[in-house]
């Protein structure tokens, strides 16, 4: 664990240095540009938001449904790791992405309520609030001051809040500028990806806690999470295949352009890597290969978000040739720059460090006991 922590601290420092470079030399040192205004940082934001949402739903479901009572002893860990560390990761990714984060106060002073970003801010705040309330109630239960029946309402709130991850897709889905995003299946895909990401992170965490004897985590509990993640990966695959079929059937128009760009065009390597990751993750988790399956699932979610962004952004609606800085036919694929990758890894490291130190420092609070 010390070696892992040391490595994460080094990564966090690398991330800090990369971000410093961005502050000094400008966001131009990333590979984002006027055609790709959203890149790796938004991918990270989407994944961490999904982890927070999915963890809220899992923690809520454990207390709402007696069939999931076996997860109750671990809901403090799930809430801390998934919700709080997830929110820290999401918040940091947005912070480094904004050109002027110090002006974020205007979102409170003069919010434009028709903006999906304002809705996102509200939803993430709700996750923080719900997670805090949930943690408080869990503490009450652990102190014997509350029982399972007292957890029903907060559980419903947690599940409802988690489901609002669908609304975070609206920043993409509602854009008329982006026909590939502007489809009703995308919110559902966001929900699936959120739960997959949360389950993958939590499976890795719980398996590791079992391995280092932090707490006993029965293997069937983790495997069950894997089966659910496997099913959701399969559903994601159906969604992707459906999109591809729609593009092929009527092979004209803006949506079809994006589909062909992914299947056979410049984005093909990324697209087929996504399909492979989904397939392999699905099969591994179905066979209870938790560690490999979880990593593959996380890779699949990463590529789903990555391809979501680049496939539409690199296929502008006015695809005509222009001057060198505005020449759509010359657009290739989006590969984040080294400073971008460094900053992103640093943020992931910070979230992991927070998780490790938090669990270690407050073991008596987090370590599961038989919850009523």
């Amino acid at each position, binding site marked *: 664990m010390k070696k892992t922590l040391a490595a994460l601290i080094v990564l966090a420092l690398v991330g800090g240095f990369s971000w410093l470079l961005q502050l000094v030399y400008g*966001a131009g040192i990333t590979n984002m540009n006027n*055609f790709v*205004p959203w890149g790796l940082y938004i991918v990270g934001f989407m994944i961490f938001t999904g982890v927070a949402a999915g963890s809220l739903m899992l923690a809520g479901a454990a207390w709402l449904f007696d069939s999931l009572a076996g997860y109750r002893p671990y809901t403090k860990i799930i809430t801390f790791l998934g919700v709080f560390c997830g929110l820290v990761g999401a918040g940091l990714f947005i912070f480094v992405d904004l*050109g002027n984060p110090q002006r974020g106060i205007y979102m409170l002073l003069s919010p434009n309520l028709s*903006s999906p970003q304002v809705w996102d801010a509200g939803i993430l705040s709700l996750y923080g609030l719900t997670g805090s309330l949930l943690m408080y109630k869990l503490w009450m239960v652990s102190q014997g001051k509350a029982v399972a029946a007292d957890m029903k309402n907060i559980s419903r709130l947690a599940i409802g809040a988690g489901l609002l991850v669908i609304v975070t897709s609206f920043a993409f889905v509602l854009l*008329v500028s982006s026909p590939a995003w502007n489809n009703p299946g995308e919110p559902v895909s966001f929900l699936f990806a959120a739960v997959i990401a949360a389950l993958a992170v939590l499976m890795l965490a719980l398996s590791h806690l079992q391995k280092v004897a932090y707490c006993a985590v029965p293997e069937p509990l983790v495997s069950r999470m894997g089966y659910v993640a496997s099913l959701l990966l399969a559903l994601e695959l159906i969604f992707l295949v459906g999109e591809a079929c729609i593009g092929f059937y009527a092979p004209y128009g803006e949506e079809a352009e994006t589909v062909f760009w992914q299947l056979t065009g410049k984005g093909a390597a990324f697209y087929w890597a996504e399909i492979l990751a989904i397939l392999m993750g699905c099969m591994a988790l179905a066979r209870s290969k938790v560690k490999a399956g979880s990593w593959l699932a996380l890779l699949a979610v990463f590529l789903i978000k990555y391809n979501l962004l680049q496939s539409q952004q690199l296929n502008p609606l006015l695809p005509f*040739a222009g001057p060198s800085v505005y020449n759509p036919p010359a657009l290739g694929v989006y590969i984040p720059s080294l400073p971008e990758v460094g900053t992103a890894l640093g943020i992931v490291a910070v979230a992991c460090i927070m998780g490790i130190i938090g669990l270690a420092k407050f073991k008596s609070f987090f370590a599961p006991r038989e919850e009523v």
Partner: protein
Amino acid sequence: MYMGMVIDLKKCIGCHSCAVACKLNNNLPDGMWWNRILTKGGETMDTASGTYPDKLNLMHLPVNCQHCEDAPCVKACPVGASYKADDGTVQIDYDKCIGCRMCMAACPYDARSFNWKEPEYPVDHAVGEADAPKHQGHIVEKCTFCKNRRERGEVPACMELCLGRARYWGDLDDPESDAAKAMRGRKTMRLLEEKGTKPSVYYLL
């Protein structure tokens, strides 16, 4: 009042004078163009599509902010930095922009540019209009229909240098304005009209 621009595609020769006039007058930083001339034809600028000698197609398409009536960028901006002015144009309050680039994702015309670093210029002094917008790093910018020039009673800079006199400017609600008169009897189109943005830039075919 509904200010708009009309561009005659039969007169546009793709010289980029309007783009250069815009860049100079607004003292745009390196790498930023608010006005750009696209080539609807071949895969590179100023080339035609098709095979010689038949079916060759080449058209130049000046594209700037379309100042849409139903602007998706205004809806998308989380802090209200992008807003509709009283004359119907879409403007940006640079001091409010948080640089989230949501408006860039929302714009179907890729008309917006982000200052990816602190502005740098080819010469060590500002050029163009003294009252041109002051540029800031890490904010989004776009064509303003030369708000500063219009406030002085002048026309947008892109109009003044157009060699083919292809651009017309005026109040589209006023049938006697240059823009309205230019459209009379001509077939017109607006870019990506099916998106429902209702652009204020009309192209004459």
